[in-house]
């Protein structure tokens, strides 16, 4: 593995290796001294062309916990606002000796270009590109699911065994909400499929992307039906990305009549929570629109693992940085890609 750009081309063995490594990283994070000397002397550049709080902080924390040097670069207040191109920015980073570049960009495919154009030798990690992919988010979601749901007793007991080395075979996952604008949903569909889980997307017809029939998942327009009939093991609520919804209308652009109607049909509230099996976990990639796609009751319920997802994000990103940076880069390059 030289770069992490997409979950669609991530092999099952690589995905499981990342999850297993993340489990060991998570174990080190309960120690008094959380910092490890592993990536001493390596430089990680956080290249953020798009606003982000938790992903950037999560990557920064992960790199620092592994003793890497971190350089934060955001488009605001940099030469990008003066019109510098991605190529020139990349050449600058190369000249500064970056070992890994974590990139978030509003254009789908920007990380792929950065990785393959030959501008930088660094490992490239996609931290979200346009409406395309957000692989570390999908990996942390899969990690959270595996931790809670794999190794459970057959009777649905809450005793969770050691899930190391296992995939998510047989789990049923419902991904609900604004699939159209969601790179999280795209990354999750591919990764969860690779790991053997069965994904059902639930969204209003206007928020289902064109071409969804080629994705390895089911699609439904009715949340109550899916919750009652498939009895999902995990329900992942997606943020309604109103900043990407142009057009007038009462908050929903042209995609739904008004927020109240969206909430009635696709919001997770106390009533829908009661429809779910006892072991089902509730997830959300954040930031949440409380009262729109998820009610406070659902977000704060004991089965919500939303805060844990953030903690697991650090462990997963530590694992990704370790696997990309710790080994002998020259040998890796000769062998892969």
């Amino acid at each position, binding site marked *: 593995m030289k770069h992490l750009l997409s979950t669609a081309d991530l092999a099952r063995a690589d995905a499981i290796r990342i999850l297993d490594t993340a489990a060991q990283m998570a174990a*080190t994070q309960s120690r008094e001294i959380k910092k*490890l*000397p*592993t990536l001493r002397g390596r430089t990680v550049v956080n290249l953020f062309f798009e606003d982000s709080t938790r992903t950037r902080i999560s990557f920064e924390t992960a790199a620092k916990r592994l003793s890497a040097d971190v350089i934060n670069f955001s488009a605001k207040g940099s030469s990008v606002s003066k019109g510098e191109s991605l190529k020139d920015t990349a050449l600058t980073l190369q000249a500064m000796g970056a070992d890994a570049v974590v990139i978030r960009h509003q254009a789908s495919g920007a990380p792929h270009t950065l990785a393959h154009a030959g501008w930088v030798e660094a490992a490239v990690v996609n931290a979200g590109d346009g409406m395309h992919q957000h692989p570390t988010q999908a990996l942390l979601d899969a990690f959270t699911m595996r931790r809670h749901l794999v190794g459970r007793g057959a009777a649905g007991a809450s005793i969770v065994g050691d899930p190391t080395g296992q995939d998510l075979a047989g789990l049923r996952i419902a991904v609900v909400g604004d699939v159209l604008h969601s790179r999280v949903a795209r990354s999750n569909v591919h990764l969860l499929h690779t790991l053997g889980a069965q994904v059902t997307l639930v969204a209003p017809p206007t928020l289902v992307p064109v071409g969804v029939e080629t994705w390895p998942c089911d699609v439904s327009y009715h949340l109550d039906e899916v919750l009652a009939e498939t009895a999902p093991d995990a329900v992942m609520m997606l943020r309604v990305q109103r900043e990407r919804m142009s057009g007038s209308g009462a908050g929903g652009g042209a995609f739904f009549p008004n927020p109240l109607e969206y909430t009635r049909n696709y919001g997770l509230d106390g009533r829908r929570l009661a429809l779910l099996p006892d072991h089902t976990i509730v997830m959300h990639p954040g930031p949440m629109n409380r009262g729109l796609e998820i009610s406070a009751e659902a977000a704060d319920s004991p089965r919500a693992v939303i805060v844990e997802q953030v903690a697991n994000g650090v462990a997963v990103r530590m694992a990704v940085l370790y696997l990309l940076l710790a080994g002998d880069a020259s040998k*890796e390059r000769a062998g892969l890609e």
Partner: protein
Amino acid sequence: MSSGPAVPSSEPTVTPEDPSDGVTTVLGEAEIARALTRIAHEVVERNKGAHDVVLLGIPTRGVPLAERLAERLATIEPGLVPADVVGELDVTMYRDDLHRHPVRTIGATRLPASGIDGKVVVLVDDVLFSGRTIRAALDAISDIGRPRAVQLAALVDRGHRELPIRPDYVGKNLPTSLSERVSVRLVETDGSPDDATGEPVTDAVLISQRPTSTSSEGTR
């Protein structure tokens, strides 16, 4: 300790059984068992009992060795529960050679419930070689607690130290040349029957010429 000098003497102590295939069995099942029993007694003697002792095995093969030592400690010191004194300590993330090898898989670190603060930690490894693994282990220990003392037990000391590190307990001092490879085979970690013969695997310490060995490499 009674196991001889820390720096191996130069005279060879081993006569090859079967030089044709280049693999020599240095210690068999019974010898390994006897060495572990002796080490267990030495641990008890040196620490005046085993009540404060914690055994931390270094993956992969240090872990079953630590477990076997704990069982022997329990027979020497009645009332000691083996599971309460054994742990494992993964040192991968503390190694100084990470960038020289392909990415290593990180193992588990598991401490006994009582922790290691104020205890006597005995690190257990299969082959002591350069001493770099132990250097990494000492760094790892200082990140997870503050033991009263740290001691080192190795089943085999093959010499060629690159750091000022000396074992406290040695199963066997094994003078080797750098062109040789020392491998340890244990039922717990290498237990599946031999592919070639179908015979069950037994404990053994083997010496072979590089680069033939496939199991535990003595590059420590």
